[in-house]
């Protein structure tokens, strides 16, 4: 039969690339994703890799995976189950078998299914029997042999040859999904611009894979996922860390300030520092500090001196920054603190995602020390919330913690490129030269923010610091002054509510059950709710991006539902926050603490159970 006869039209498909850490699966996944995005699919990705740079070859612990969900209509999650699994070795099968959809396709490199490797992967002997692989459609190809063959005349060393295996697999997948090579070849050209032999080898192997799939008898039908019907405009794919970095850049441009970032590398937040370090063309002052404390303290210094100041980190780093956050609260300087959450406590699961730093963000400091807390909820809206965090910090003169997580940081999706014109201006309360007395803690009547007189401004010399002080900045131990200042700082944060949009529900204002989420679980919760609604359940979703202060209409929204269920990737932190804030409601919980995103299936099951209770 010819190609078109075997085409299966699908609304959406999930593909997972997996192999050893060294097998290049992250790259393969990214290339496939970008190609699909350019094709016009909506998509969502989820890289999932071990903490070691190269975990032991051939073991389950060493498997690196990249999952991508491409769709004809909107796609909110990387998908629960894969339709197609690329597994470069037995360990990849072992690690992923439970995540493949019944009847899905597994592409394996049969050259790697030696007895030694099978045992190493943790099978007794026979993967097919042990993992009931006959439920799946297995495409077994001697990839290693074929790659050697394809490159045998090129005079390359064996290592280089083997390193192109991922391109063979990618070629097969491109055939399966009927994608072209344009993007991939361009990528290879720019990446290896100084090594034409490498470009050629990769390109040869890519095509070899494609043609092998095309000519192979046992090949599965090919999938067709038509382009998504998405809003008109120019698009790109973007991951959460880049989006965060760019959102900050946008804020600096809109505020007319230099951007300073003082950070220390830490997984999964390093990408933000890296993305900004690359932007010297836009004048970014990126400072790799000696540790997290220096990261935030240089940022506080830069804020004092008039820059848009940022520090980025993950949980353990946020812990180290706690004391200095207090200093920013006390000196009432604008500061954006980004925390890309990962599995904790302690070093925990550094490459896995979790939402367990919420309480730390709210309360992890000595004394009465409130800050604004915001959470992004998709890879691309990290841009929006980073921008907003900076705008609030600058206009309200307050530190803002922006929470993202490993899932958002590394995940990517197509994003409609905003126009800078469409973004709001940011107007920090900067003081100009002058002779009249400058009173550092005099407050704006509405926002309660103080003014910003930066060193270098004539006639505005003043002193600030971490001790309690009067409105003039003079150190003061007067009891009533302390109480007043504590309450002013809290009220200033509370009044940020004026910038917080009302919370909207998906899709009803009232009903049986309101699923409540925050941050990076948005896609999974929304998909689950939409599916439940299709099944006729009276379920809606309220998903929070503003944690402190909460949207003004929160209680009102809650009161429209019989059951309130808070779902989060921790042991119950947002729910505690809500219990403190809203004594009049009772909340149920769905929690998962596994270093992994929710699956829609889990959420649906639990909601159905709670509906029946």
């Amino acid at each position: 039969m010819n190609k078109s006869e075997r085409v299966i039209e699908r609304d959406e498909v999930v593909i997972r690339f997996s192999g050893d850490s060294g097998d290049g699966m992250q790259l393969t996944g990214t290339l496939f994703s970008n190609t699909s995005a350019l094709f016009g699919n909506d998509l969502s990705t989820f890289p999932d890799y071990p903490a070691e740079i190269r975990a032991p070859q051939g073991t389950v612990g060493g498997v690196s995976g990249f999952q991508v969900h491409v769709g004809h209509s909107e796609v909110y999650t990387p998908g629960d189950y894969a339709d197609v699994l690329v597994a470069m070795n037995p360990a990849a099968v072992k690690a992923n078998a439970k995540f493949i959809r019944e009847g899905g396709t597994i592409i394996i490199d049969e050259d790697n299914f030696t007895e030694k490797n099978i045992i190493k992967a943790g099978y007794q002997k026979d993967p097919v029997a042990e993992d009931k692989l006959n439920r799946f459609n297995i495409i077994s190809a001697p990839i290693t042999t074929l790659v050697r063959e394809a490159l045998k005349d090129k005079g390359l060393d064996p290592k280089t040859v083997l390193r192109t295996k991922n391109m063979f697999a990618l070629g097969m997948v491109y055939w399966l999904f009927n994608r072209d090579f344009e993007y991939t070849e361009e990528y290879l050209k720019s990446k290896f611009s100084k090594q034409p032999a490498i470009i050629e080898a990769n390109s040869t192997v890519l095509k070899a894979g494609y043609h092998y799939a095309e000519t192979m008898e046992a090949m599965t039908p090919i999938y067709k996922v038509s382009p998504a019907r998405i809003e008109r405009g120019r698009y790109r794919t973007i991951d959460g860390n880049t989006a965060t970095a760019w959102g900050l850049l946008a804020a600096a441009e809109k505020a007319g300030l230099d951007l300073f970032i003082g950070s220390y590398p830490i997984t999964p937040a390093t990408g933000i520092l890296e993305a900004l370090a690359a932007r010297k063309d836009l004048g970014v002052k990126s400072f790799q500090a000696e540790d997290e404390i220096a990261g935030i303290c240089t940022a506080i210094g830069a804020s004092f001196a008039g820059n848009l100041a940022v520090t980025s980190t993950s949980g353990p780093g946020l812990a180290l920054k706690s004391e200095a956050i207090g200093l920013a609260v006390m000196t009432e300087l604008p500061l954006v603190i980004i925390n890309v959450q990962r599995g904790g406590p302690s070093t925990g699961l550094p490459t896995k995602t979790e939402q367990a730093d919420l309480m730390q963000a709210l309360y992890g400091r000595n004394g009465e020390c409130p800050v604004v807390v915001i959470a992004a909820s998709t890879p691309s809206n990290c841009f929006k919330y980073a921008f907003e965090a900076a705008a609030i910090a600058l206009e309200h003169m307050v530190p803002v913690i922006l929470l993202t997580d490993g899932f958002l940081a590394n995940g990517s999706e197509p994003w409609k490129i905003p126009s800078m014109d469409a973004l709001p201006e940011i107007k920090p309360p900067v003081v100009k030269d002058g002779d009249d007395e400058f009173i550092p803690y005099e407050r704006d009547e509405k926002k309660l923010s103080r003014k910003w007189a930066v060193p270098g401004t004539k006639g505005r010399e003043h002193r600030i610091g971490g001790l309690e002080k009067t409105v003039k900045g003079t150190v003061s131990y007067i009891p009533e002054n302390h109480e007043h200042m504590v309450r002013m700082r809290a009220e200033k944060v509370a009044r940020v509510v004026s910038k917080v949009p009302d919370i909207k529900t998906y899709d009803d204002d009232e009903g049986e059950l309101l699923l409540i989420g925050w941050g990076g679980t948005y896609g999974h919760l929304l998909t689950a709710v939409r599916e439940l609604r299709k099944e006729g359940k009276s379920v809606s979703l309220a998903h929070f991006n503003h944690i402190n202060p909460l949207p003004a209409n929160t209680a009102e929204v809650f009161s429209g539902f019989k059951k309130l269920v808070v779902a989060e990737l921790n042991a119950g932190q947002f729910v505690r926050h809500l219990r403190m804030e809203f004594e009049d409601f009772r909340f149920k919980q769905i929690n998962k603490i596994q270093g992994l995103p929710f699956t829609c299936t889990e959420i649906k099951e639990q909601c159905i159970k709670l509906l029946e209770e």
Partner: protein
Amino acid sequence: MTEEIVDLNPGDFKSDQEVRWCPGCGDHAVLAAVTRALAELKIPKEKFAFISGIGCSSRFPYYLSTFGFHGIHGRASAIASGVKLANPELSVWQITGDGDAMAIGGNHFIHAIRRNIDINIILFNNEIYGLTKGQYSPTSTKGAVTKTSPFGTVEEPFNPGELVIGAKGKFFARTIDSNVQLSAEVYKQAALHEGTSVVETLQNCVIFNDGAHKQLSDRKTRDDNTIILRQGEPMIFGKNRDKGLKLDGLKMKVVKLGNGITEKDILVHDAEENNPGIHTMLANMRNPGFPVAMGVIRAVAAPTYDMALRGQIAKVQKDRKIKNLDDLLRSGSTWESK
């Protein structure tokens, strides 16, 4: 740095805040020396930013009429680094104590020095934690009996000069609270030096470590116990200026002038020599046996971090393709949906 030249008196640099150090504390004299040095720099007042940590000495910025930031314990080097990088036009000063800079703040201190960020660090060394009422510090003499070492400490102290040089320091000087004239002179040189400059200022804490530097401040003993180094001058000291320093192989030696030994035999001070060998020896000299070196011990020109960063940005921007956010957002692979 700004080119504008202004005329200000030391008094113009005093703020209206009550000075809260103990009567007799050496910090008062340092304040006097600093305001003198500032006035001599002829820079407009608003260009100065004084950043401190926590400690008695770290209260300093409140007493100046410049921009000031009283930070948290140990972090002044980091805060000051941020200030300087955000605005390289400023004259940035760090005020810190032996505890603030060398205990909790040790890491930021050595990293600022290594990077050679252009900040002027005045390190108040009273060999004690003053503000917390008398515990030993990383510079307290071995065996010191303090509130947390009732039977004497069992650890060797840091020598600030040695640590600074070990951390790639390009400027190190030493002065003492009691010599306001010398202090003012040295602070000014520190300010004029481009890159991190550290001025160890021996300071007397009358309450918790009174007399720690007495041999160096007392009129009767100071001239024999200290040597003031000056660029290009022979290293001669003593009440009667009859003693000098000489190299004996790789070691420093005190010699008496006369009896065939003349000024020509005496080492000539060269703070600008890149090789830190002699500077380390000078910084390490201790009573008894050697005079304690005062003045600018090391002052080597080297590129600063802040200028290098500026330079790199300028270079990248010169033929940049991406000039603003709209350019960036549209760079790389994008596609149009119609």
